[in-house]
């Protein structure tokens, strides 16, 4: 339990009023910080390029995380909460971080399975005699038309 409880026990029951009362100025500072960060996120997303589109997304998310932390810490008084309540919130947020982490790992390590099992060194059992006779032959192009496309306009 927090320190607020220790002196609350002395009198006729600890009242919520004996919890931490943050000063008015703190709320104004947090508000202006959030407004400035909103301007920064709009400006960086619309007018600044950090090399790649992914980099821009990462910058926007980092700013959003800073803004979210300010809201949770100061507006929601997480900073002055009991340990168990912080654990609840941390567990939910931690679960989400794990969820996102494994999804990102999955999305970035996927392979596209080929249509041709022979290309993977697997035994081919096909009704097509050409494929059966020559397992491991070059992968059939998915779009044969593409090979001819660039040559077409040059004739005119």
């Amino acid at each position: 339990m927090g320190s607020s409880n220790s002196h609350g026990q002395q009198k006729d029951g600890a009242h919520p009023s004996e919890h931490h009362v943050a000063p008015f100025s703190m709320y104004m500072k947090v508000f202006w910080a959030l407004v400035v960060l909103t301007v920064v996120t709009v400006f960086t997303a619309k007018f600044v390029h950090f090399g790649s589109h992914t980099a821009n997304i990462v910058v926007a998310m980092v700013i959003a995380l800073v803004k979210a932390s300010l809201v949770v810490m100061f507006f929601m008084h997480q900073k002055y909460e009991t340990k168990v309540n912080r654990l609840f919130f941390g567990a939910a947020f931690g679960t989400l971080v794990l969820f996102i982490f494994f999804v990102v790992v999955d999305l970035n390590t996927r392979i596209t399975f080929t249509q041709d099992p022979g290309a993977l060194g697997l035994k081919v059992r096909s009704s097509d005699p050409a494929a059966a006779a020559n397992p491991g032959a070059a992968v059939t192009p998915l779009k044969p038309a593409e090979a001819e496309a660039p040559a077409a306009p040059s004739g005119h």
Partner: protein
Amino acid sequence: MSTGSSSAHHQSSPHHAHHYDSPEQQYSAAKQGIWLFMATEIVMFGGLFVAYLIFRNMYPEVFAEGAKLLDWRMGSLNTVVLIFSSLTMALGIHFLQVGKQDKAALSLLITVACAITFMVVKYFEYSHKIHAGTLPANFFTYVPADGSATTPNLALFFGMYFMMTGLHGIHVVVGAGLIFWLFLKTRRGDFGPHYYTPVEGVGMFWHIVDLIWIFLFPLYYLV
């Protein structure tokens, strides 16, 4: 009244329910319940954010083109409106803590006004999309003004957009109703430095609504 807890508690706080040892314990229990509820809110919206991540990874061009069809000025305006409402909500609790009930009531009323402003802006955005046909799934009928073709699967973007901003919008409406109820109770003198638990609980809900918008805004309108 004689339920084992000292009667002094009952006299000092009319809100003290008999099954709690002290108002302090009652307050802690209420806060704990609200934090648990907030945890469920995070995992609920979290699932939708993961869906966004997967679809964005699969169809990056859809999300790039979709963002251009949203008005980032309206999104920015709504962001500032919600941040301001979070401030007035927090100040409502602050003024109750220091015993300024009139200022607390005014803060709560401004918070409701901000929530209504947010929904009015949202109404203009949604109605524009309904007219333009930038809608989810087979409701999607949008054709650009120059008659050019749109990116395939663009309807997916609007499916995600309406799902996430819609669920968020429902939270804003519910929050506005609850805060108006708090305003009425504050006006009646139900809250003060010794008792403001419902204001604190609804306040936390309102900050979570703001928190979710802080992520929705850049993900849909900006990047």
